[in-house]
């Protein structure tokens, strides 16, 4: 058993989960969505096993580092964080239909890691700047933040497809009540915001011990701050200006675009301290 085998298994299991959720939604069979929950659970097990095994393998190769050091590893971990957070949310809210907006994201992240030929999946040694205990704290908190925003992004689409008429019988009428949708997106953004804050702070403290600057306006830093601003705007609009519904959902979607740019755009389009990935 190798880590890459387990991670490919996880990719296909997540794909299967997406099929279950989408099937449940399209054919109005709630039982499929409830099965989807367990399929994601199995996917998370494979995903967890893959990450742990990769960690062990890096020690066997003599490099010995946590598997959070390049784009491939971060995408695999991104999938894991979204999946785990989603399982928690479904368990807590007992709404399985919302998985249709999340399962594809879990699958896409890990599939992108495996299928994009420009992403190197080899275990490589750590450059000196990454050799720090802050690596684990920084990556875990940032990706928990990203996962919260990813879920909020998925849930935001419900605002645009759920019919306003409470007596509607269309496919989309089965979605959760408005106040549940509202609460779900808000809770995910609050969760994401707290962890993005901690992620930026751990990165900043780390930068101060590696380079002697806690903030250097590097593109990755700046974009994470821009993302933070967007979600700060979201929170102020919601809590202080009474925004709700679609307008607020648009802010949440803009926020996730900023997350994606912080994550991918900066690595591919701009250069800076984070150019090694993650």
């Amino acid at each position: 058993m190798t880590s890459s085998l387990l991670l490919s298994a996880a990719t296909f299991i997540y794909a299967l989960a997406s099929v279950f959720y989408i099937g449940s939604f399209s054919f109005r069979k709630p039982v499929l969505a409830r099965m989807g929950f367990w399929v994601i659970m199995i996917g998370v097990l494979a995903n967890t096993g893959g990450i742990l095994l990769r960690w062990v393998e890096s020690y066997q190769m003599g490099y010995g580092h946590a598997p959070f050091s390049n784009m491939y590893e971060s995408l695999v971990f991104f999938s894991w964080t979204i999946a785990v957070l989603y399982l928690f949310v479904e368990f807590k809210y007992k709404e399985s239909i919302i998985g249709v907006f999340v399962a594809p994201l879990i699958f896409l992240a890990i599939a992108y890691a495996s299928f994009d030929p420009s992403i190197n999946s080899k275990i490589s040694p750590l450059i000196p700047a990454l050799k720090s205990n802050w690596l684990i704290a920084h990556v875990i908190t940032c990706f928990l933040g990203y996962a919260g925003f990813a879920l909020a992004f998925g849930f935001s689409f419900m605002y645009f497809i759920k019919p306003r008429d409470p007596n509607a019988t269309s496919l989309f009428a089965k979605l959760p009540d408005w106040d549940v949708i509202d609460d779900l997106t808000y809770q995910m953004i609050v969760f994401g915001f707290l962890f993005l804050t901690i992620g930026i702070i751990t990165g900043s403290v780390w930068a101060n011990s590696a380079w002697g600057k806690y903030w250097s306006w590097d593109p990755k830093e700046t974009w994470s701050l821009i993302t933070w601003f967007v979600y700060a705007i979201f929170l102020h609009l919601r809590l202080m200006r009474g925004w709700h519904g679609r307008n607020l959902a648009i802010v949440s979607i803009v926020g996730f675009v900023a997350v994606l740019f912080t994550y991918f755009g900066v690595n591919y389009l701009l250069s800076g301290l984070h150019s090694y990935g993650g």
Partner: protein
Amino acid sequence: MDKNETIPKQIWTFFASVRLTVYLLVLLAVTSIIGTVVLQNGSPQEYIRLYGPGLTNLIKVLQINDMYHAWWFLLLLLLLCINIVVCSVERLSKTWKIIFPDKITVNPGRFSSLKNKEQFTLSKDVGEAAAALEAVLAKKIGPVIRKQTDQGLVLYAEKGRWTRLGVYVVHASVILLLAGALIGALFGFKASLRLDEGSASDTVFAAKTRAPIKLPFSVRCNSFEVRFYDTGAPEEFKSNLTVIEDGQESFSSDILVNHPLRYRGINIFQSSYGTASPGKAVFAITDTQTKQTVSHTIKKGGSVSLPDDRGTFEFEGFIPHFDFRGHNLGEAFVGRISLKDQESFQVALPTKFPTFDRMRKGNFSVEVTSFKQAYYTGLQVTKDPGVWYVYAGFLFMILGCWVTFFISHQSYCLGFEKGQGGQTLVWLAGKSNRNPHGMTLKVKKLATQLKEI
């Protein structure tokens, strides 16, 4: 805005608006993008090459070449700070009475109509039921207030009133960390220092202006080491430094990337390295006619006589890049041959091509046969007295966010009505200043616990 207000009052009202906060955050987010797209801190030539002379002028006028320190960006940050302070003062003065009330007033009417209301019956009379539930409520929530109303007896308990302060902690933390950044910018410095192995210095050079800054001590680099993985990627850079104070060696320490030296408010970081001139090397000098070779170990700046005393050879120095007819041949030793009665000339001896000097076809050819690679270490030297304010800001921000978003001010109300046959009808409802859904779940859970009494 009311036209009759005085000007200071109008200014105050302007800064007390959350709409202003949103606009400022949008402006900060949008303008921050510019600095990630336009080259920062480049040379004038680079700007002209990349953007042409017209745009370069615009970039200079708006200080986009150092955007995050441009006056207008700093002004946005200043406005945000004023906005935060004014908003907080304004709101805190209004909510102070809510956070620290003289006496908690209970208004059961605000609870009995809530959506999360739970109802159940207990087979006890009102007095017994209330006494039993009061004990549970006091244990699970907090001190209980009893109130007799027209509808019957009401019990009230609450917790987390103080969490309403969390948001002010978050806002104060923003001010604190910006203040820390300002202190760092005013009283600190960021500088660099290049030390060859064996050399010492007490003067560093500021990152932007290159102005010399004197440290309260000297630093000597005893040795520098670089290790590589088998893939060729660097594994570790390490400098062994000795701190010298008043001519006395104080202590020595290894510094690595991520493991700086911090001493007397000065931080020294490993940031780069490069090859330096070796102090000595072994030169083999061959007489091209007789093919006889003699070897000498020569110190930098030293010289030896050529065979048969026909002149001298001097080891002049070492250059990192030797340019030969437009090709960079890399590191090279530089020597000077002075033949008797002739003008002296320089020879370059690239380390990658040991026999290079034979191509010159002179009377003598020189070859470097052995030398110890020497390095210089590139150190980043900083002083930042503001960093502790920034770190305190970080801590308050995390704590404040946690309290604001995950702990709430919850109040619960229990109502008792006399039912039939000695039973008591009980209702429970709860209010929270955050997370109404979570509150509904909490009320449900508490109701199940209370039912079992």
